[in-house]
Every structure is written in structure tokens, then in C-alpha cells.
């Protein structure tokens, strides 16, 4: 009955025709929202989704090029993954390279290879949160660091990783009941929403993953990952309930106290760590359930970065 299809602007003949017919101003918003309205939780979802990191891609100077490669500037969506959003970067640098010199592309920031399977926002918060913008990423086309990075041959690998994260999260939240009730096309809709940066499309489906029975007061367990700088382990992930056995709502502080007490600042102490989610520092009394519903990444995990307070 109803079909939804996607076309890029270039491929849509109709659209161009009507753009002309209506004049360019027909697509400009004619009214601005009333600024007096109180902020709604929906706005948080929107802000989280449309978070962008200005990035400057430079080619690794060791790469053999035919002519000098110019830096490439891009706004990267915080909630997406590097391979999904770097087609343009690849295209840009391939122009100056010989095909035989090109191996799998990978990225590095100040000597650290960037794990593509972490959301971009997490990579930024974790490695570069206090640097001057734009974020300068070095692009490599050879010497793939097999010990540090997973290979990513195509976007379908990212999709598989993304979907497995969502499934893992739902296993924690709803014993997988919600995700298993979804159809294949629903799964696809989640991924397509992320891939094409379609907030409405993604959330129309993701909404279901964020539901829970009111009497429970929250999910079964909160899917979270805490990233820390001074550890061999990539991140902390354990079972943690949104509500205490006594019925109190757990807060971000409660979580950290149990998982990573060092991250907390004790009384009279100098603050040593920043606890970053999507580049902001929520108050420790923020209810964890709320955070999980509103500040999770599209993979349904709450990614929490604990980074040292900048010294300067």
C-alpha cells in the first residue's frame, strides 16, 4: 500500500523540477518556532541526533601521492560511524593517489588508531574532547594496524556490528523481546535511519526499544559502556538495574560509584575526571533510566567516557 523509498537529491528528477517551479524560497522555513516553549525531552533526542563534530581530514604524509593532498573538512554526525560517513573523504584522497598504493582506509588521531566500531562522538569525547576544533584526523591507506582495529570491508560490516549492539542492548533491556518482535524491515529501518541521517525514520522504530512497563519503573538492565583512559580493558560493561531493590531510581552517580568509583570526585578533592556523554557532563543525580532513554547512542548503549580533566 504505502511505500517508502529513498533517493539522493541528485537522482530525483521530479524534485529538481519542482524546486524550480516553486522557486528556492518555497523550501525555506517560513516561520520560526516559538522560542517561548519549554524544552521537551524530544528536543534532547534531536540535539543528540544532530550533534556534529567539525573535522579536518589530512592525509598521512607517508602516503605516496601524485600531487599534494589538500585537507578535507567535514561535519561528522556524532552518533554515526566513521566508515558510514567517510565516503567523501575516501573519494577526495583517492584523487591524488595511485590505485596500487591504496589499501584499506583507516584513521588515526595523534598516534591512536580510531576504532571504527565506536560511535564517532565517543571517539571524539574519549580522545580529543579538549582539543581545538576542528578535530584533525589523519587518513591512512596502508599499514593497517591489525592488532588495534577490526577490518571493515563494507558498510554491511558496520550494519552487522550496529545491529548486534542493538540486539545486545535489547537483551539487557527487555530480554530481547522487543527486538525479536520486530520484523526484518524494522531492523532495516533502524539502520537506514542511521545511515541516511533520518531522525524521524530511526526514532519511529527506536521508540519501541525505549518502552518499558510503567510498573517496572525502567528497563531490566541499563545497557551502558564506560570508557576509561587508564586501563587495558576497552570499556566497563556490567549488569546494572535502573531501580534499586528499595525502589529508588538509580542515578549516574550510583552507576559510577559501583563501576568506576575513581571517576567520582570526593569531597574536598580536586576534580580529576570528566564524565562525558555526547560531549556534555550530566549531573551525577541524573536518573540513569532517563539517560538511557534519551542519551543513548542509536546502538541503544549509553556510552560514557571518563577522561582526565585538562590540566591547563
Amino acid at each position, binding site marked *: *500500500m*504505502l*511505500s*517508502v*523509498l*529513498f*533517493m*539522493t*537529491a541528485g537522482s*530525483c528528477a*521530479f524534485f529538481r523540477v519542482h524546486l524550480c517551479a516553486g522557486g528556492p*524560497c*518555497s*523550501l*525555506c*522555513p*517560513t*516561520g*520560526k*518556532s*516559538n522560542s517561548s*516553549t*519549554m524544552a*521537551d*525531552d*524530544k*528536543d*534532547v533526542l534531536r*540535539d543528540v541526533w*544532530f*550533534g556534529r*563534530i*567539525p573535522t579536518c581530514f589530512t592525509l598521512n604524509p607517508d602516503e605516496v601521492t601524485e600531487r599534494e593532498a589538500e585537507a578535507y*573538512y*567535514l*561535519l561528522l*554526525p556524532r552518533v554515526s560511524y566513521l566508515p558510514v*560517513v567517510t565516503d*567523501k573523504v575516501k573519494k577526495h584522497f583517492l584523487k591524488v593517489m595511485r590505485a596500487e598504493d591504496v589499501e584499506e582506509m583507516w584513521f588515526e588521531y595523534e598516534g591512536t588508531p580510531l576504532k571504527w566500531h565506536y560511535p564517532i562522538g565517543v571517539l571524539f569525547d574519549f580522545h580529543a574532547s579538549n582539543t581545538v*576544533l*576542528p578535530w584533525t584526523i589523519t587518513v591512512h591507506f596502508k599499514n593497517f594496524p591489525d592488532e588495534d582495529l577490526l577490518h571493515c570491508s563494507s558498510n554491511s560490516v558496520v550494519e552487522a556490528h550496529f545491529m548486534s549492539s542493538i540486539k545486545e542492548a535489547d537483551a539487557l533491556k527487555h530480554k530481547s523481546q522487543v527486538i525479536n518482535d520486530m520484523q526484518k524491515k524494522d531492523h532495516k529501518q533502524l539502520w537506514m535511519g542511521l545511515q541516511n*541521517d*533520518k531522525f*524521524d525514520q530511526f*526514532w519511529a522504530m527506536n521508540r519501541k526499544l525505549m518502552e518499558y512497563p510503567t510498573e517496572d*519503573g525502567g528497563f531490566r538492565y541499563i545497557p551502558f559502556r564506560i570508557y576509561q583512559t587508564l586501563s587495558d580493558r576497552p570499556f566497563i560493561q556490567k549488569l546494572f538495574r535502573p531501580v534499586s531493590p528499595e*525502589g*529508588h*531510581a538509580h542515578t549516574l552517580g550510583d552507576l559510577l560509584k559501583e563501576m568506576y568509583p575513581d571517576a567520582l570526585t570526593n569531597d574536598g578533592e580536586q576534580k580529576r575526571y570528566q564524565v562525558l556523554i555526547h*560531549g*556534555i*557532563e*550530566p*549531573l551525577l*543525580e*541524573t*536518573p540513569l533510566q*532517563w539517560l538511557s532513554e*534519551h*542519551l543513548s547512542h542509536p546502538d541503544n548503549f549509553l556510552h560514557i567516557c571518563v577522561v582526565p580533566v585538562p590540566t591547563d
Partner: protein
Amino acid sequence: MPVSLLWAVDVYGRVYSLSTAGQQWEQCRNSQMEFKRVTAAQTCCWGIACDNSVYLNVHASDLPIRYQEDTYENQRWNPVDGFSDRLLPSDRWQWSDSSGLQHQPLNGFQLPSSTWEWEGDWHVDENLEGEPTEKEGWTYAMDFPAAYTKDKKWNSCVRRRRWLRYRRYKAMDTWAKIPSQQTTLPDPFSDISCGGWEISEEPGGRLSLWAVSLQGKVWFREGISHHNPEGSSWVEVPLPGEVVQISCGPGDLVWAVLWEGQLLVREGISRDNSKGTSWAVVESPNPEVGAIHVAVGMNVVWAVTKDNKVWFRRGVNSHNPCGSGWISMVGEMAMINVGLNDQVWAIGCEDRVVYFRQGITSSELSGKTWKAINVPRDGDRSHSSASASSLHSAGCFFSGEVRAPSVASDAELDIEHPPGDGAISNAPLHCPEPCVDAHKNTSSELCIEPLKPHIPKVTSDSFISELVSDRKPAKTDAESVSSAVLEEEVVPGEGEVNVLSSDAITCTQSGGPPDPQWSNVDLEEAQIQHVQTGAVPDSADSCSLSSVATYTLALEDQYGADEHPLWAWVSGGGCSVDSHSQLNWFNCPLNTSMLQSVQSMSLSVSPAQTAAWRKQIFEQLTERSKREMDNFRHYEQAIEQSVWVKKGAMQWWRDWKPHKWIDVHFALEQFSGADGNKDGILFIYYNYHEEKKYLHAFINEVTILVPVLNHSKHTFAIYTPERTKQRWPIRLAAATELEMYDWLALLSVSCCDSRGIQGPPSKQAIWSITCKGDIFVSEPSSALEATPYPTPCDQMFWRQVGGHLRLVDCNSLGIVWGIGYDHTAWVYSGGYGGGFFQGLASSTDNIYTQTDTKSVYIYENQRWNPVTGYTTRGLPTDRYMWSDASGLHECTKTGTKPPSPHWTWVSDWAIDYSVSGGTDREGWQYAADFPASYHGFKTMKDFVRRRRWARKCKLSTTGPWQEIPPIQLSDVTILPCSAQSSVDVVPLWAISNKGDVLCRMGVTLLTPAGTSWLHVGTDQPFKSISIGAASQVWGVARDGSAFYRGSVSAQSPAGDCWYHIPSPAKQKLKQVSVGRTSVYTVDENGNLWYRQGVTPSYPQGSSWEHISNNVRKVSVGPLDQVWIIADKVQGSHSLSCGTVCHRLGVQPMDPKGQSWDYGIGGGWDHITIRGNSMEPSRICLSSMTDPSPQAPRSPLPVRSTESSSALNLTM
């Protein structure tokens, strides 16, 4: 759903209520005594107390119960004294009623009972049918009886004036004893049941109250109404037998149980005869086992037989009150009660727990399962210490019973035993055959035999019933029982005092735990009497036994009462729940500490809106966006923006003649901008003479999407400014309702996105309501009220808000109230979306369930012929014999459907007597011919007649609205003010649906719902009210005249007195609206009037000036801007009825304005612009001289005409 109460009595006679929103039983503390029975209605609760008197507990309401007494003072003129009280001998009394036949001196008026008080002294009525009279209130005539005028003429020989006084019912929220009629009531009541409030269309308060006396007689309480909650007297209803219990439903069902176990059905109950005419007998569901209990609702009858089996009666309704057959239900119950919406409660016969029948809907009246209501009682702990004393008084209560006249008859002897029978039948529960056999064998003395297999189970759950029911015959079991009891007795160490007290009350309280099988304390008592008179040793035995039992009970109460309250009676007659209700009764942990923690948790979550952490997140996100994005906007986006196309097949009401639905392809192409804002174009592809064509509209030009759902088509209309001018929207029909709402939600989001509108409506928003009850809201621009070039009102963008209302009012502080079709008051919760808006188009907080009910009317038409009189055979030229009001469309009872699939029938067709013009006793109205003006009586010249049938339907939806129970309203007004004004408490006035004027207390920004009503006395009902920016309150009374309320201020929110303002000549006003200074009214003939001469020193004004005709409603705002709903507006393509119009040229010096600008419509019913206090921007003024600022404004209309011409080309 408003919060309502379920009432119950525990085995100690303590009365409790459980709120539908609550999680614990609250004890009715103000009762000094114990109760045997309660029967609840929504407005009150009746009960039989331990003193055998009937008590009434009227729930407190901000709306007082007041009664207007009036009498007339009559005078005659004579040449000597002028007018004097010296009347002719043939004249009426000097003080009389209106007709003059009744002598009514002022001091002859007495308060009917001690529960009433006078509200003031007698005063003269200075209003004669909307016209103010001279100060003294005299009205003149030539002679009695005659037509009176307010002016004295040369031939006025008599005069009279009306005196008024109000009395008020004062016994609110307390149990007031109904004075007994000693002469006519020889024996006390044992059962009581109220209902019948649905029989007539009279507003709340009218009740039928039925009672059963110990002797088995049935009594009916006459004259209970809103103005007389106590009723006037008991009338005995003749009976074919002796009744033990009676049940009266909300409608016309009344069933009773006979001692012998058959059931009686009252027949002939109608609007005119709430007592009914005769009894019919229905046999017990099980021929072997008689019924002991019956409970009836609107369309259901439930019964319990003596073996505690539960039965459901099939096929019961108004026309067939006897029903057609019994269905056996699962469960064993002591009693059952049917409440509102045919919902059912019961008390388990074994565990004494209150059960709720889950899953009862109008289509499945028997429900699905019994579910125990496991909520704790308030202060269960604190009770335990009090339990002994309450037990003691319970004992007194029963000892009082013993002193009652001995009425133990043979019949009772027979009856007295079945409880035992019932009790034992729980043993052979799963194999009824042996039991039945036993019955066959023993027939008359059936009670003795089956006792033998019975071995009491001494568990805490059942021991009471064991002990009590086995009292007399259980001598053989006594040992085992008492030993068990002794075991329990050993437990407590501190129980000594209790032992003493329980000893002290011994025999007298033997009835303490009432017989569970009967749930009837009096039967229990009768047993005791019998026992005492018949077999003294036995009785002593049993008494001591049961006193031990109660003693253990007391202990149990002390240590574990929360685990197990024991209930004796439940009444759901005032409890409004249905299958959709969210009840907290079942997921409530019994552990009170858990309960507290649950509450504390929900508390910690709910003020999330204002919590610091939340604010912090908002601020930081904004800061982050600024930091990370503001300076880098010129960077390329990583993800290519694309077009999202949604396509579907639809039908389109084509623009050219002949108009008809044609199949089209429909597509929405959306383009996302970098910042997430979207825009789009919608296309309708169609074939015109084999040629493929399309029609398109830009999403940012769509001004409104209107759902037009009916049973034949799922259609919606799309308007652009041009389409509004034409009165010819794009009409589309989707294949299914779901698809329609899918599209509407998507299109709506696209429209809002393209205009950058999201979140809840602003405080300045303009609210409007369609004739279907759909709610729309528009954000005003500052240019909306600009002069001379305001934004044309056909360019206003309207978006829908969930919910269903009849009218709405708001002010610029963001306080919004609405009133539903069923007169329920709602306050706006601050959310948005709801209804069919799902997901992102709807806020998650602040969306609530909203229900509304309204009536659908059809007409039965008949023509008179000389042979057969009035028949359904009309002339060939006549209208349909069943039709709508116009007679043009056939509307049969079976063929008429609710207005849309969202509505479901909730009642059957019933004759509507409340038609203007009046009806005869059968609801007929007569006329010479169709169509004509009808009158309510038959004359020689009448050849046709008609009557109106009404059927109620109900809608359930969601929206950002919270109910404000319990008073039903017909109008509401909120003080309009400027946005920056700091008003702490916002004046809000309303009219109840009975016409009372009310003033809401405690309305603030934080509590927009306010706290309570203050009643403002009037001498007649009101129908409209409005408050202006300077607290000037105007009202319209039911006689069509206006009233101004004097001295309303912050200090005196209700003002001091009414000033009567006559209506324009020969017109009856119906609505008033007051802005900053302007006062506008609309009369019943659609004329709009402006009040001339209103000044601060003379706020009443001097005269009415006619502004316009063709007006349905007016709304005057805080800038004195005037908006109306016009009745008919001619567009270029079609005519629209119910159109939003804006008065142009309204300026401080010219508050009446110049002309009308036409906006959205037709089909609009209501608008309020009282929230828009946005002063027009100065730029517009300068634009008169300087054309340059005007330039950016001009493209709008120009472009819309361009695109419309493009539209025309494509057609």
C-alpha cells in the same frame, strides 16, 4: 476518568472507600457507628447503620445543594390607600404561590430537616422575564390572574411581587440520619439499594432508593432529587412474597431475592414511574438451590445461589428486564455488586476478599476473570489497637439486634439453615452431583444431612466462616475448632487485655463476624434470636465459641490485618471504571514499606520537568551545539541529504464537475535541510481524459489538515490560503482509517517541520474547535492584529492537538481550559500530540486518556389518518418515517451509526423528552404538517407528529488534557491579560451545566486546574460568562438577559452583586465575551452586539449596538480584538458554515472595527483568541508611510496566487 470511589464494609461494620486512583482503603472516619450495608451513587452513599436507621452521606461538592423557595405578595389598588394588602374577598391570599391557589406566608416556610440551613433572608425578585422591574419588584395587572407587566398603567388594579429565599443542604461528607417514620415502619431495614439515575435525563441527584425490611417487605424512597437528596418519604411496595435482598441498577432494572430463593423482577419502571408497576418471578438458576443474592446493572443481572455459585443472566435489557437464561460463572462469592458501566465487584465467600471482575466490556458483559483487590487499608497498624473497641461497639450493635422484636417464623427457620448448607458445599465443590442428591433426599430439611461430610478447615482464611456458619449444628466439630483456636490463642504475650475485653463482650457480640454466606447481618441476627429462643444451651455454646473466634480475629487484626482484611459488603454504584481504566489496585504490594518506596520513586521521577539535572542537560547540549557547530556551518555535511518519498493510493474528490471520488496516486516528497528542518511537496497524480496529470501543493503553504472521518470514507481535507478562499479544500480519502492517520500524522509533522514549529503550543496560541470536537491551535504572529495590514487570516497555520472538546478558553499566561460534549471540564497539561499523533509528533509526558460522550438523535415521524389515527404510514410525499431532523435523510434505529468509528454506542435508543417546544407523555410533538413548528400537545389542527430518539455514544482518545472533576460545566472564562503581567491567582469563572455561576479558586501558573469552586448565587440559571482584562464579569442568564457582576477584584474574587442589563429589544442573548474594555454578545438569532458607553465609572454601559448578523460565537481578546465564528461564508467555489472570521480595523478609538476577514472553515464551532496579547509590531504602522519594510511581506500573498494559478493550470 474522574476519580471515583468504591465503597465497602468490613466484617466489623467499618466503612471504607477505595479511590480509583488510590492504592489503599480509606476508612470513613467521621462515622461514629458501624454499618451493615452501604449502597453508593456517584454523588452520595446510603447506608444502614447498627442502629437500624438509614443514613445518607452526600459527598461534599463546591457546588452547594440549594433550593429556591419563592412566594408572591399580592396587592390590590383602592382609591383610599392606593395599593395595599387589603384584597377583595374573592381575591387570592395576600401571600400565595404563583397560581394564587396556595396560601404561602413567609413564615410558613420551614426547613425540611435539620440538615438544611437558610442561606439568607427573603428578598424581592426584581427581574420579570429578563426585564428589570422597578426597585420594589412589583409587577402590575388589571386583575388576578393575568399577564403581569413591569409598568404601572392606568388600569393596573392589582400588583404582585415575588419573594425569594434559598435554603442549603449542609450535611456534606457526613452520615446524616434520615428521620424515620415510626408509624409506617414497624421493622428495621435489612437491605438497601440505590440506582435509577439513568431513567430520566434529569441531571445528577435523582435516585431511586429501594429498601428491604426484616419482615421481608420492600419500601421505596420517594422524591430523591438533586434539590432534595434525602427524599421525602418511604412508600411500601406490595409484594408477592417476602424479600431478603434487593438490587437496583443505574437504569430501570430492579431485581429482588425472595426468602424461598426465587427472584423478583420489577416491571414497568419508566421515566414517569420510577417505582414500576408489577413484579415478575424468575426461577433460581439452580432449581435445587435457591438464590440468596442478586445484583443488577444497566444491562446485566448477576446472582449468587445458596451454594455460593455465581450466575450471570443472559439477554437482560430495558425491554426484557427478565432476561432469557442463566449462565454459570466461575468463582464462589458471598455477594456481588454491579457498579457503573456494568462493572462487577464481589466478595469471595471463603477468603472475604473484594474481587473485581476483569474484562467487562459492552460486548462482553460477563467479563473474563475475577481479580482480587489487594490493597492495604489506611493506618492498618493504628487500627489494631482500636480494634478491640470497635469490636466492642460492633458487639453493641448486634446486641441491639437481639432486642428487636422476635420475628422468627417458620419461614425463617427454613431459611436460617441454608448458610450451613452453603458453607459445606465448598467441600464437594468439584463434584456437585452428590450434593444435589443430598438435596433430593432431604428436600425440606436439606440443611442437616450434608453437614456430616463437613470437616472444618482451620486455616486463618476460613475459620470464621466455619465457626459462624457451623455454630449450631457444629457441636461435633466444636472440639476441633476450639482446639485450633486455642493454638492461636497461645501465640500472643501481650494479649491479656484483649482477652479481658473479649470476655467482657462474650455473647452480645456473637454476631461479630457476620455470616459470610449471606453477608447479611440481620439474617445472622435472626439466627441468633432463634438460637436463643429455641435452644438456650446451644446458643450459649455458640456464643462463647464465636466470641473466641472474634477474639482470635482481634489478635489477627493486631498482628497481620494488612495481610487479610475481611469484607462483608461492597458497593460500586459510585465507582466509575471501565475495561480501559488504569487501576492501581492490583499491582500494589501489600507490604506498606514497599508501597512507600514505590511512591517515593514515582515522586522522584515525576518532577523531572523541573529538576536541575534536566536543565543542566538542556543547557549543556545547547552550549555543545554552539561550541562544536556554530563556527563550522560552512563545512560540508558528511551524509548527503536525500529526498524521502512516501507514496500511496488514495481517492480524491475531484475539482471539476461532476464532483466525484476518483482514484489517484498520492506522494509526499520531503527534503531535509542541514539543520534537520524539512520541507516538501505533495503530489496528486490523476488521469484526465486518459491524460496523466498532477496537482501539487507545497507543504509550507498548507495551512491545515482536517480529518473528516465517517463511516463510509476515511477522508481528510488539505487547505492552503487559496483553497480557504475558495472554500474548496483538497479532499482525499484513504483506504483504511489506519492509513488515513498514517498520512495525517506524517503530513502534519512535515507541515510543522517546514514552518519550524515543534513542541507544545505557545501561551499566545489561538485555539479553535471544529464541529466534530477536533482541537486546532495556531501560533499568532505579531502582525496578526496589525492595522491596517494584518496577516490575512486564511494564511494562519493550524495544527491539531489531541483530545475532544466542545469549547476552550485560554489566556496569555498559558492557562487553557476546555469543556467536553459531556460537560466534563479539562485543563491543558502542557503537552502536545496525543490522538493519532504518535511518537515524535507527541510529547511523552502530559498525554492522558480523554473520553467524551454525546447523543445521536433521530426522529420518528407519524401522520394521522381518520381510520387508524396516527400511523407510520405517511403520504407518498412525506419524509421518511424515521429520519434526521431535516427529514431529508432516512435514519432508522438499526441503520444509524455513531458519528465515526471512534465512537461506540453506550446506551440503547431512548425517547428524548427534552426537546424544545415540549412533548407529551410519550415524547410526541405535534404539528399541522411537516416541516413546521412543533408543540408538545395535540390539537384538532394537527395531522403529523414526531418524537426524538436519542442514543448516547462514547469516544475514547488521548490528548494533553487532564480532567477537573467533579462538577460539569457548560461555559468557562479566564481573565485575559498581557503576557508580561504578573497575576498570581488567575480569575477564572465558569457556569455549571445546571446553570450555577462558579468562581475557581487557586488557579495559578503552577496549578492551572485551581483548587476549588466558589459558588456565586444567582436568581436564575446562567448560560454564558466572560471576564474582561479589568476583572469585569459579564454573564448571560437563561432568560436571555445580561448581568454585570459588581466589585470583582483580586481582594473580592467573586464580586458583590449582579446588575441586571436588559437584552437588545426582542432578542435573547446567548453568549458574551469581554476583552480589555469591549463587551460583545451574540443573541439567539445570530446577531452580534457591541455594548456602548462602557466606561470605568459606568462599567455596565448604556446600550447595545448592532454590529453584524450571521454570527454563531464571539471571542474578544486582551487587545480588544474581535474574532467570531460566522454562520455562513460564501467562497469562490462553495459556501461554508462555521467559519473563523477576524474583525478588521479594530483600534482603541474604533473598537467596533470595520469589516470581516475570513479564515478557516466551514465546520468550525468555537475559537478563543484570548491568549493572544501580542501587540502588533510598530513596523506595520511605519509601513503606511514607508513602503520598504512592507516589501518582504508582499511576496507571501503574491506567491500564493502564483502557485494557485499553477494549481489551476494543472487542473
